[in-house]
């Protein structure tokens, strides 16, 4: 997938936030967070912004584009 992410790194750096905790803050299921982290699912723009906000980082700190 062309869109990469650093969600796992940022999550672990954020006081060891769990996938479930991030999912609860973003409003998706834990399985969706797993799929996003593994690059198997590309989130919508809104969800991407919510993830970035939950991790206290900018959108481009969390997601990258290779192409």
């Amino acid at each position, binding site marked *: 997938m062309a869109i990469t992410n650093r969600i796992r790194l940022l999550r672990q750096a954020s006081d060891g936030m769990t996938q479930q905790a991030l999912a609860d803050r973003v409003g*998706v*299921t834990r399985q969706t967070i*797993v799929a996003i982290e593994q690059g198997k*699912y590309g989130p919508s723009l809104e*969800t991407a912004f919510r993830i970035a906000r939950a991790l206290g980082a900018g959108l481009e700190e969390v997601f990258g584009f290779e192409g």
Partner: protein
Amino acid sequence: MAFREKLAWVSVLVTAGVFLTYGLSLASPALAHALGGTARTRLVGAVFVEILLATIMTIVIAVTAPKEANAPRDEREQAIAARSAAFAYGLIASLLWMVMAAGVFLGADGMSLGLACLAVLVAGEIARFTCQIIAYRRGA
């Protein structure tokens, strides 16, 4: 396993189990005798049993995961449901064309056409939930 994946498994297994049994009862006089009734009454019974079983199992699963049960589908779950429904629609439409052709050109009787349509619907539902399961298993 995701809550919605569990529901998909319930739907596939209950639908396949109930209607496979019904289909076999049409082909096997021994099974038909064991189940009792006529083909029509067994069909009504199959629908009733399917609804009952699916409802009970869904309630059991929901009780074990109330937070997930009450939460709406998230965007990924909605995407999986939409892709699965689109595939199932295509399958149903294709199979129904074949059933219609069989009716028009082979002169199938009403009961046969009705059962063929039922088989198409059952196949469509099984396909829809199977697509969902595959998507959840792949983590996509």
